[in-house]
């Protein structure tokens, strides 16, 4: 908790007390900490001298901000139009089926966070999935399971090495 406060206070140093800075502050906190916690909302409200309701109202309006800690890997399924007509909905369903979570949620083991995005503009590669920052184009139903297993195996191997 103290650690978090320290980090947030450091971020505040880059900004003036001005409501116009609310979104850039939220972005900076999310970039460094991974999400906007309840404590984060309180700290921002104190800093900008606005209500917590205002902070949360803005943060929850925009799809960028998340309020729970993200998983180890982020999976973004593109649901842009070009991907949609090439079957992205089925790809999303397959991820849901394997991970047992809905978009916006994180698996119980904190391994994967599933999200959807509205077009990343790499339409020639559709249907496309972005795994962390890696683009996986021309996705097929079967590639879903393969991708998940690949990342799980990598993790297991890492843990073995650590032991």
């Amino acid at each position, binding site marked *: 908790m103290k650690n978090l406060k320290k980090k947030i206070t450091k971020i505040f140093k880059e900004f003036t007390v*001005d*409501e*116009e*800075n*609310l*979104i*850039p502050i*939220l*972005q900076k906190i999310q970039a460094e900490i991974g999400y906007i916690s309840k404590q984060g909302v309180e700290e921002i409200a104190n800093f900008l001298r606005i209500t917590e309701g205002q902070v949360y*109202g*803005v943060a929850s*309006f*925009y*799809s*960028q*901000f998340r309020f729970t800690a993200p998983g180890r890997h982020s999976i973004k399924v593109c*649901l*842009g*139009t*070009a991907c*949609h*007509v*090439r*079957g992205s909905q*089925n790809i999303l*369903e*397959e991820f849901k*089926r394997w991970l047992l979570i809905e978009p916006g949620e994180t698996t119980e083991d904190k391994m994967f966070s599933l999200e959807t*995005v*509205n*077009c*990343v*503009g*790499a*339409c*020639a*590669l*559709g249907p*496309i999935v972005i795994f962390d920052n890696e*683009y996986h*184009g021309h996705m*097929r*139903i*079967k590639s*879903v*399971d393969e991708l998940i297993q690949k990342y799980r195996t990598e993790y297991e191997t890492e843990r073995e090495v650590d032991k």
Partner: protein
Amino acid sequence: MKKGNSIEQLEKIRTNILKSRKKNKTCITVCGGTGCQAQGSGIIVGVFREEIRRQGVESVNIKSTGCHGFCERGPIVLIHPKGIFYERVKIKDVEEIISETIINKKIINRLLYRDPVTKKKIVYEKDIPFYKKQKRIVFGNNGLIDPTDIKDYLALDGYKAITKTLQSLTPGEVIDEIKISGLRGRGGAGFPTGIKWESCRNTASDIKYIICNADEGDPGAFMDRSVLEGNPHSVIEGMIIGAYAIGASEGFIYVRLEYPLAIRHLKIALQQAREYGLLGESILGFDFNFDIRLFEGAGAFVSGEETSLIASIEGKRALPRPRPPYPTQVGFRGKPTTINNVETWANVPHIISKGVDWYSNIGTNNSKGTKIFSLVGKINNTGLVEVPMGISLKQIVFDIGGGIKNNKKFKAVQTGGPSGGCIPEDMLDLPIDFDSLNKAGSIMGSGGMIVIDNDTCIVDFARYFLNFTLEESCGKCVPCRVGIVQMLEILDLIIEGKGEIEDLERLENLANLIKTSSLCGLGQTAPNPVLTTLRYFRSEYLAHVVDKSCPAAICKNLVEYRVIPEKCTGCQRCVSACPTGAITGPRSQPHNLDPSKCIKCRACYEICRFDAIAGDAIIIRSKGSTADAK
């Protein structure tokens, strides 16, 4: 330290850049747009650098440029000055390109583009049909310059429009030029840019702002991103000219967060423009101060609407407000503000440099210049195309786009994103400009063009857009917030096979109500995808409602999957493709499909279709029907 304190100094810098660059020097450019980077072009540039050193051809230049537009064939590598075009270049090809093409001057046949019509290989970029019919003005320099180096832009006459403006034009004259040119806003509505600027200029105020709207939210449209990524200085130059004409001292570029590369290139470009005295105090020694700040959007489609965008920069929720007053009178911080789209700003330097006569000769009577479209979906040549206004849809889809993937049948093209509509086959001769698209019930929008074939269900497609606007509706006004939900519920019933004939009329009534009573553009246009599909593809709605069948075999509730035993060779490819184990059977014997396990994901169907051995042993057809739907 500022490098350009006057126009003379800037010109001197330009002369020095040109002197230091030998003409006709061999230069390899690798497309560094997001599409090609997703296919690994970033690594390829590094491999080229290494290989150039290793093979000792250090005199050859290597450059990562902006998007070339032909995303389908990426990663794209061009060899200048001849313009040799290599497609789908992989790491292992690099060594050969250097040893064969650069050193031995030989063309590598394998990497050339093959024209699907004539079946002939094409060597030069300019001869490829995809590029031949285009008119690349805004996009013209994208493939030639390194967007992170202002010198490249200066070498191609960059920032000459601003020097011309400052030297010889009054702000009023700039506005006149833009008015006469006939430039209309490229963000969607097509409002005349000159009139917008004039209105802002004529509003008395101590301070004025300009904003570049780069919150490109339409799914399937990415031309603004490619301009920002590939030629950021052209947008900055347009904004400086605009600020001079309007009398603005501060500008913003509002970029969508999903575009990290555009943000990175813009940051570099803004910094360089400041270093060269093109932004900041006393620009090029004139009594004119102007600077630009970058604002990263936080993910909200509605913030593409101008009043919402302003609210967002002010640190609030992106809620629209009624107009008038327009932002040109009461905008950011309550001051007069001009908002234009990326492509609009990027057109401005060209109009000023080459003159209004040149510009207004391109296009149609009421829509001048070119427009960039992103041609995506079931099309052979996915990519960005810049064409003169007035070109027909047919030319775009078939001549430039190369027709439909896998030789399927064209069904419709959707323009204008979630605010637009579907245009059917019998309207393919429609000349594309602002007014003709409006007449057809669609809109130009930001330029997304999604091509669909008979495998796309039109009802599902309309639902897709409506679901999108539902998620993105800000919730401020009732017609949009509640009306769209109602429409979606009806569409869901139709898709599940529970629709009735009266539902179509209910949809139309609701749609018209939402269109006429919503607060902002999002709600006013949200019903367009449903309305146009009801108008041009009513029979497909009727099939769902009356026959309870989905002709495209997409709507899961209305279809079932079957194996045709006589056709099945038992190759087992579908068995391994099936994620749920619904298909079973030993090799070389017709397989079984267990409907209770089948999740209708199409994996087996697709693998069977494209497998030459089995052909079409798996079919999807309407429930209860005995005829083969597919």
